[in-house]
């Protein structure tokens, strides 16, 4: 399946979904498909991916603080058995005052550790996540602080925090 065909399939099934196809300048140019979907239909799109290719490989969640909303982009590699694969990025967003996204661990079980990571670092709550414990941060890390947020709930730069080699403050 070519990227254009894939975009057509998504467009036919889900109306009003933003799709763009980018291409880089490698000797063998590589196309990527970027899909943007609201959070209500996000899970349906993911289910559709699984129908298209049951062996799709999940790679990463890129969660980002964009001012008044939090975005999450998911990357899949599809049709890897047939040589050149399809690189699909599906993005969704949630407002900061209601940071809830649906979990997709029931469709792709490998997303669980990534969702746990996003949950502790950016404070996106995953609805129905089977294992909401912390993964990277220590268990006694204060609640309500999300290290990768850019607003006041993030961590602040501490100058020379007791580091023996730190430069003397000016």
């Amino acid at each position: 399946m070519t990227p254009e065909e894939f975009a057509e399939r998504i467009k036919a099934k889900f109306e009003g979904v933003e799709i763009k196809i980018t291409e880089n300048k490698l000797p063998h140019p590589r196309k990527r498909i970027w899909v943007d979907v609201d959070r209500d239909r996000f899970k349906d799109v993911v289910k559709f991916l699984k129908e298209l290719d049951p062996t799709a490989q999940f790679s990463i969640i890129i969660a980002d603080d964009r001012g008044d909303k939090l975005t999450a982009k998911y990357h899949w590699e599809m049709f890897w058995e047939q040589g050149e694969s399809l690189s699909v990025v599906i993005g969704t967003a949630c407002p900061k005052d209601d940071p809830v996204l649906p979990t997709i661990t029931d469709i792709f079980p490998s997303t669980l550790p990534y969702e746990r990571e996003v949950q502790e670092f950016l404070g996106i709550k995953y609805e129905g996540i089977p294992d909401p414990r912390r993964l990277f941060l220590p268990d006694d890390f204060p609640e309500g602080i999300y290290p990768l947020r850019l607003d006041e709930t993030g961590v602040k730069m501490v100058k020379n925090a007791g580091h023996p080699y730190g430069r003397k403050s000016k």
Partner: protein
Amino acid sequence: MNEKVEYWVKIPIGPIHPALEEPEKFIITLDGERIINVDVKLGYNLRGVEWIGLRRNYIHILYLAERMCGICSFSHNHTYARAVEEMAGIEVPERAEYIRVIVGELERIHSHLLNLGVVAHSIGYDTVLHLSWLAREKVMDILEFIGGNRVNYSINMIGGVRRDITEKHRRAILDMIYYYRQEVMPKIEEIFLYDPTVEARLRDSTVIPKRIAIEYSAQGPTARGSGITKDVRYNEKLGVYPDLGVKPVTPKEFTGVIKGDVFDRMVVRVGELWQSMEIIERALDQMPEGKIKAFPKDNMIIFKLKKAEGEGIGRYEAPRGELIHYVRAEPGRDGPAKWKMREPTFPNLFAVARALVGEQLADVPVAIASIDPCLSCTDRVAVIDANTGKKKVLTEVDLLKESIKKTKEINPNIKAKPERVGGVGL
């Protein structure tokens, strides 16, 4: 009458444990000797590289990315450079692509030799550890010869590479390949393909079936050992790799069967050693003349990237599997607005934790070693080496002196005098 008393015992392996090279914690629930649950806890070496990256510019991050991991340091800054190039639409000269291939494959050789030793060590075959690490010194010397450092060779620059491969490098690399083909590979094949003791220990231990590997998105040799023909260099048509005939290596070509056990993962690594050497030879033959950087001066990169907008993804097959970096730019910023990476050990750890269920406790060290875990990447942390000799702990200054001495031995023409930066204490 159906009531059966079960004695479940929880054993923590880690964060600091003799069987583990780096801090990570596995909480293992046991029924007798049989494992019934494995829980993974990470973050004992969390450095917050993403957070630091928000406060650096595009060029600084190249060197920060490299220091995420001491073994796949080329992979990280290569993938990051690819992400930035895709974001800004920079075209890389073809010669630079070939140099990236050569250094990347040299790194794969050293990483796989290291892992062969670690797995042999975890089954108590320490002779192999010492011999394979001795063989690894050769490729480390070549990497030092090309890049100036044993690790952190700083080869990549956005839009090209920083160091050229000249005729003398080419000769040294061909010498190294000859040495490996003649002296090292026959012994390694003897041990990891035909030795009955190794086979008895590694066969059928910690089987990751194909279904589990797909479900948990296992990467790299861990996935290919289970028969998944997935390789980013091949699937992504990355750089000039398609011209060099790269194909996913599965154990079927060597042993005829795919079982997905520890043995198969080691067979894949042995096969990739052969493949890497072939790729290097072909790349050296096909490498065209030309420039190695898209921008002659580094400040031009910052100037161009300051105006860039958009997002890019870089993917690369690191020695352990798919490595992926993401960069998003905002115009007017000289650093990325978002930089995110994912390392192959992260999904592999959870795949192997799932595969350990039902196995024996004694298989844990070898199972964990068999995915070649690089926790430093996963937690994005520093690996610390303490080197004691003659009852004296080497300090940072001593180590710097020693490494300068070694570099001068290899290349007496180097004039630069590296200095220690950032410190006030000594």
